[in-house]
């Protein structure tokens, strides 16, 4: 049962056709993990908080720097030097005190990824490099947790929703992690837009309505104002979710 306050607070989304008390209840009961509290992660965790997702865990091991402040909207001038999850959790709790915010000041690695994401309903990609994304992607596949991948560069962004066992995973799309792009240019509005889409995907996944970006990559080009979708193909020999994974396991025996 939702409280009277919940019905008021989330009323404008509860009245969305087909969402209702049931949809809001599913959001309240959900645990969403946001990995990386930068441009994507700040905006994503804010909209998850406003939407009433009951438990949000934010993870990052970096500290706030002046050069972050054009895009990482939960970090303010007074936060420079603080760990990003601490800075962000402080604001999120003030936005919505009726939900649980867990902040973890650590880097997601091959050693801890499975333990961190176990039990989450959705993982949101707020990372800033493909090496780390590949670690997270593999853990999400192993733990069978939906993974909403996104990335940005300048005014361009991409997003797809990976459902373990069903859709192509990140390693199907790129057989090896794409090379570093150096210092990546970013206007704050690009991660803001793409993170909003990530939360839109999370809401639909959790509440169970609409169509998500399963098996499709959505690209946005802000310089020319174009959206374009590409169908993604599962690689049967994928080293993470396909035959290649089983071969790797057997070789290790």
């Amino acid at each position: 049962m939702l409280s009277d306050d919940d019905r008021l607070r989330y009323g404008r989304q509860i009245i969305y056709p087909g969402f209702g008390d049931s949809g809001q209840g599913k959001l309240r009961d959900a645990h969403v993990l946001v990995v990386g509290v930068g441009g994507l992660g700040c905006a994503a965790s804010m909209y998850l908080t406003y939407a009433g997702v009951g438990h949000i865990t934010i993870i990052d091991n970096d500290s706030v720097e002046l050069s972050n402040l054009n895009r990482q909207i939960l970090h303010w001038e007074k936060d420079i030097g603080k760990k990003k999850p601490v800075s962000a959790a402080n604001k999120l709790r003030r936005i919505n005190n009726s939900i649980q915010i867990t902040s973890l000041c650590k880097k997601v690695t091959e050693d801890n990824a499975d333990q961190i994401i176990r039990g989450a309903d959705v993982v949101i990609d707020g990372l800033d490099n493909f090496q780390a994304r590949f670690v997270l992607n593999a853990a999400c596949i192993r733990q069978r947790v939906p993974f909403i991948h996104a990335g940005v560069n300048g005014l361009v962004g991409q997003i797809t929703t990976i459902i373990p066992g069903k859709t192509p995973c990140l390693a199907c799309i790129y057989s090896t992690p794409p090379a570093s792009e150096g210092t990546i240019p970013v206007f704050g509005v690009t991660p803001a837009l793409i993170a909003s889409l990530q939360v839109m995907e999370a809401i639909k996944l959790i509440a169970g309505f609409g169509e998500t970006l399963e098996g499709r990559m959505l690209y946005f080009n802000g310089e020319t104002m174009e959206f374009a979708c590409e169908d993604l193909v599962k690689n049967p020999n994928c080293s993470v979710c396909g035959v290649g994974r089983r071969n790797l396991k057997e070789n290790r025996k």
Partner: protein
Amino acid sequence: MSVKMLIPQLLHKYTDNQEVVEVDGTTVNDCINALRNRYPELERWLYRNGKVATYVHIGVNQKKASVDDRVADGDEVKIMLATGGG
């Protein structure tokens, strides 16, 4: 050097729906420029300020490559978008 360029689906509308386009060039950069010269609208996604965008992910014969890498006759160059920032 004749090289096969594998075009990602989202760009097919700019290449007359061609999925593979043969171009001449001695480096990956030459090949992408030749592709863009044939299909100028590709610049919308593949270039920034006149140069191949840093988010264009390149594979030559299914191995990760960069724009400066040399190519040989018959090579396959696959281009994809990969925006890595967060």
